């Protein structure tokens, strides 16, 4: 072996912002590499859903699921809901899967924690990176749900309120990513399968994705229980922004829940993450 005569490195200017930017650059590189496999996975579920409910069933004559003639098409109901559930699913998976690898396999978390930033900032970086993936996941669902439908089943969607749309999509992504980090750091890694079965699946099925929250009036208990599901506020917020004619929650309610939830979960996840990493 040749003798390693090591030249000193170029002068490094490691400041917190530079290090943070480099960590995000690493996420961007990985995301670019895995783009197809990651986002195909996210898209399959909503695409199949709109395909069956906005195309196949109406063609079969079973399309009167939501509203009769003159009422909103089912696809109109679905657009905000499916965008919201994609954001949640993608952001949570984007934080939980790598975290499980890092905590379990080779304990590589100890290596990531050697990056010259305080550990809580590492948690924030994980939340931001996953939120970005959630946001991309949500944006990619738009074309799918807008264009896949049978004749006469087109969704009636227009952006009625840009600020609300942007705030709900951004904060919703952060909320989901922070929630994912919290669950990932609290849960025993062997329980991840359980997490998907008993947390994520009910959360998306009952997240007011397939019906507006106000339609639950007839099932009062479910309407109240649903208030504990963060996805409900994202779906309803997107409804307010995209399909204002469909009944939806008042803005103060979903904004308070989404923004307040983001702050709360980020704070909690940062703490649990730091406890998990620093022993």
């Amino acid at each position: 072996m040749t003798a390693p005569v090591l030249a000193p490195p170029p002068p490094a200017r490691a400041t917190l912002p530079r290090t943070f930017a480099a960590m995000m650059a690493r996420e961007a590189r990985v995301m670019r590499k895995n783009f197809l496999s990651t986002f195909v996975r996210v898209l399959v579920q909503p695409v199949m859903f709109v395909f069956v409910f906005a195309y196949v069933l109406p063609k079969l004559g079973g399309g009167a699921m939501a509203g009769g003639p003159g009422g909103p098409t089912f696809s109109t109901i679905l657009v905000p809901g499916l965008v919201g559930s994609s954001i949640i699913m993608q952001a949570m998976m984007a934080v939980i899967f790598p975290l499980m690898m890092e905590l379990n396999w080779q304990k590589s978390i100890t290596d990531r924690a050697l990056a010259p930033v305080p550990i809580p900032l590492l948690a924030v970086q994980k939340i931001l990176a996953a939120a970005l993936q959630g946001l991309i996941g949500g944006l990619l669902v738009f074309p799918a749900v807008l264009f896949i439908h049978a004749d006469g089943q087109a969704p009636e969607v227009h952006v009625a309120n840009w600020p609300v749309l942007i705030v709900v999509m951004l904060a919703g992504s952060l909320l989901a990513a922070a929630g994912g980090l919290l669950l990932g750091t609290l849960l025993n890694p062997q329980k991840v399968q359980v997490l998907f079965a008993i947390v994520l699946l009910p959360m998306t099925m009952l997240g007011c994705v397939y019906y507006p929250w106000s339609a639950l009036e007839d099932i009062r208990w479910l309407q109240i229980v649903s208030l504990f599901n963060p996805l409900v506020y994202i779906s309803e917020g997107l409804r307010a922004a995209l399909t204002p004619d469909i009944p939806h929650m008042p803005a103060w309610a979903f904004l308070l829940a989404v923004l307040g939830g983001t702050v709360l979960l980020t704070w909690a996840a940062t703490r649990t993450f730091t406890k998990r990493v620093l022993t």
Partner: protein
Amino acid sequence: MTAPPGAAVRTAGLQKTYPASGPRPAVPAVQGIDLDVPRGEFFGLLGPNGAGKSTTIGMLTTLVVPTGGTAHVCGLDVVRDAVEIKRRIGVVSQNNTLDSDLTVAENLEFRGRFFGLGAREARKRADELLELFGLGDTRGGNPFEISGGQAKRVMICRALVHGPEVLFLDEPTAGLDPQTRTNLWEVLRELQASGQTILLTTHYMEEAEALCDRVAVVDHGKILASGTVDQLKGTAGADTVITVAYDAPPPDRIHALADRTGISKVEINGGQVRVFATEPDGLLGELVALGAAEGVGVTDASQLRPSLETVFLTLTGRDYRE
């Protein structure tokens, strides 16, 4: 490399007790360790698995929070100045912790960028290091599809990207084949020759002997002895250790051996006799003969020349691998 003055690593009464968790009682992993490693030194923490070496490295690299005592790296406090310490150290962990989402070269590139290098500088630095360490062929590969020895060298490269003041290695050659191990030793020697301060942990005696300027022998979270390998052998383990296992209670006449010049100590434990001797010639044969004279057979016998292993035996009274 211009070494700023002051110790690279200094600890005083450093302790770590992991709190009790469920049925498991609290674990006092490190119980008051004092270290003083000057810059430029190759220092080894030697001890069996579970001795507290990794916990100590964890505290020095800021990821394990001490429960007592103090630790300074490059003059900085491990708790208060954790981020600044992380900027100045390189760490090679026991496991392959390379980033499996990135290629080998990207692993180095991004590590450089984390530590403040620009993207182009970091790529150039990565290529230089890979060439220097004979890893040019692996640069585009996945870090989990290269050999264990290569992966370890990549991890060393990664730890060196930003020119750390202190390089920490936790069991660097555990699980590697002998040939790869000697190659890696060569790399580490060259690094130290270039002025790199290195602190490694190992449970291989021969690794500590081959590499380290100074060694601290650690067991049960405490330092039993420290110094150069020669000093350790001179003070604690100048003896050859002869161990004989008899198939019956050992012959009485063995007790008398302790008084003979050239024999420092005789330990009898059931049927096993251990003789610590500075003049071991013929002693093993004599022990067998003593037994035979009283009709006691020998089931096992061994003779260890003075080494870190005999140092350990002398200090702890038990086999290193027990």
